[in-house]
C-alpha cells in the first residue's frame, strides 16, 4: 500500500487522504496495471465520486457531495496534466453517461466498464 501511495504525488491526494483506506486505494489497484499512476488515480477518483455521491441510488449528504465534486475535479486536473485529449474526452463522456442515466432513473452502466473503455480508447 505504501509503495502505491509513494508513486502518487502528495498534492494529488490533498484533502482526500481519508478516502484511500475507504476504497480509493483498492480502485487505484484495479486500474493501475499497464496504466500510468495519474491516469489510474483519475479513474479511481471518478469511481469513488460516483459511489460517494450516490448516483443511481439515495442522494448523498452535503459533505459527501462536496468530497465527490473534489474527486471529479481532481480527476479532471490529473487528466489535464497528462495532456491527452482523447483521455480527457473519454473520461468526460463516461461521467456524462452515468449522470444522465442517474438523472433519468435508469440503471447505471458499471463505471468500471466505462472507465476501462475510456482508458482503452486512449491507449
Amino acid at each position, binding site marked *: 500500500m505504501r509503495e502505491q501511495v509513494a508513486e502518487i504525488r502528495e498534492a494529488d491526494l490533498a484533502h482526500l487522504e481519508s478516502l484511500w483506506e475507504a476504497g480509493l486505494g483498492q480502485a487505484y489497484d484495479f486500474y493501475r496495471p499497464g496504466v500510468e499512476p495519474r491516469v489510474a488515480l483519475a479513474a479511481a477518483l471518478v469511481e469513488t*465520486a460516483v459511489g460517494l455521491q450516490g448516483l443511481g441510488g*439515495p442522494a448523498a449528504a452535503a459533505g459527501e*457531495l462536496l*468530497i465527490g*465534486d*473534489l474527486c*471529479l475535479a*481532481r480527476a479532471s486536473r490529473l487528466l489535464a496534466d497528462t495532456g491527452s485529449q482523447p483521455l480527457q474526452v473519454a473520461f468526460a463522456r463516461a461521467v456524462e453517461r452515468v*449522470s444522465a442515466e442517474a*438523472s433519468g432513473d435508469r440503471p447505471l452502466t458499471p463505471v468500471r466498464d466505462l472507465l476501462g473503455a475510456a482508458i482503452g480508447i486512449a491507449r
Partner: protein
Amino acid sequence: MIGGRRLELSTRRGTEFIDITARLQAEVTAAGLSQGRVHVQSLHTTLGITVNENEPLLIGDLERMLERLVPRHGVYCHDDFARRVNIPADEPANGHAHARLLLLQPAHTALVEDGRLVLGQWQSIFAVELDGPRERRFAIQLEGEFGRPDRERDRDLVELELARQLLVDPESVQVPMRRLVEAGGKRLRPLLTVLASRLGPHHDPLRAAALAAAVELIHDASLVHDDYVDEAATRRGRATVSASEGPGRAIAVGDYYFAKATRIIAELGNPRVTSTIAEAMEAICISQIDDVNLRGYFPGDHDAYLRVVRGKTAALISASCLAGAQLAGAGSEVAGRLCRYGDLLGIAFQMADDLLDYSEHSGKPVGTDIRQRVVSLPLIYATEDGRVGGRVRELLGGPLDDPEVREVQALVHSSGALARVGEEARGLVAAAVRELDEIELNGVRPLLVDIARSAVDRVT
C-alpha cells in the same frame, strides 16, 4: 453621423453641477454607436460643460471656487442695464455667469468604444449651470460606426452556444439546467472569457463562445450543487433544481454539466486552457469544503474569508479571463494581468454579494447568509467592532431564528461594517483596473473597467 438630437434638463439652483454621463451613455446606446465620438454642445451662454469627479464635497469646492474667482455680486458692466440697449424685459443680472463660462467649456467631445463612453475611473461629464434655475438644452451629434456593439454580439453568441449545447442533452438533465440558464444571470464569467479572447493573435469568436459557454456551465453546475448543500429553495427567482427535482437529480445534473463542460474544453485542444479551468474547478471544490467546515467557526476571520472567496468565487472569474487569453494565444504579460484582474474582481464581486444580504432592494432574501452561517465579511467586521461586536458574537453563538437574525442585521448596520466592506470592495476594483494599465487591450479596456465597476456598483 446622427445629428439633431437634443438633451434637455431642468436645473434647480443658481450654480449647479449636473452629472449627464448616464444620459449621454443612453444616447450612445439608443443610437447604436459602437465606435466613434459623441459631441455635446451647450445652446446657452451661461451653461457650460466639464469633466470631473462626481464627489459631493469636491462639487461644493468647485462651486465655491467659481464664486471666489468670479463673485456673484461683483461688478459687471453687463448688469448695468442703463448702459445697454435692446434689453429683453426679463433680462437677468448675470454678468458673473457669462464670466464664469470662460473658466469652463461650452462643448465637449467624448470618445466611444464598443458602445461605451471612454472615461477614466473617476471621470464624469457634468453640465454646469451658471445662471439657474432654468430649462436647458444641449445639442448632440454622434459620429462613427453604428451597429450593435461587440459586447451584445458576444453575449448573443454565448447565449446561442449555450442553447445549442443544451439542445443535444438528455431531457432529464437538459430541462432543469435550461430552466436555470434561461432564468438569466449576469454571465460575468463567459463575458470575461470572450473579451479576454479578443486579446490574442488567434482570436476566433466561435471557439471563444464555446469556451465561454463551458465556463458558464461549470458555474451553473456548481450553483446546482451549492443550492442542495445550502438547502436553498429559489435561485434567480425560480425553484432550485434540488427543490423542484429532488436532491438525487440535482447531484446528477450538476455532475453531468461539470463533465460536459470539461469535455467541451478538452475538445478545444488547448492544453493550457484545459489546465487553467481544471485547476479552477479544483480550487472551487476545495474552498466549498473549507466554507462548509468554517461554518462551525462562524463568522471566521478576514484571512479565512479571503481564502474561501478566492476559491469559491475568484478562481473561476480569474480562470475565465486567463483561459480566454490563452485560447487566443495572448502574451504572458497580458494573460497574467488579466488573471490578476479576475482574481481581484472576483473577491470584490463576492464582497458586493455579501452586502446584498443586507439590502431590501436586491431581490434576494435578506439575512440568508446569517441564517446559513456563511462566512461573510460584514459579519466578520461587525464582530470586530468594539461597541456591538460582543453582542453580535453572542447572537451568532446561539440559535438564529427571525428575531436574532433581525438583531444581527441591525447591529451590522450600526457598526459601520457595510461601509467598510463597500470601501474595501471599491479598493479591490481600483486595483483590478490598475492591472489593465500599461498593457495593450485592443479596445477592450472600457468594457473590462465597466464590468469591474458595475460588479460593485450594483450594491454600493
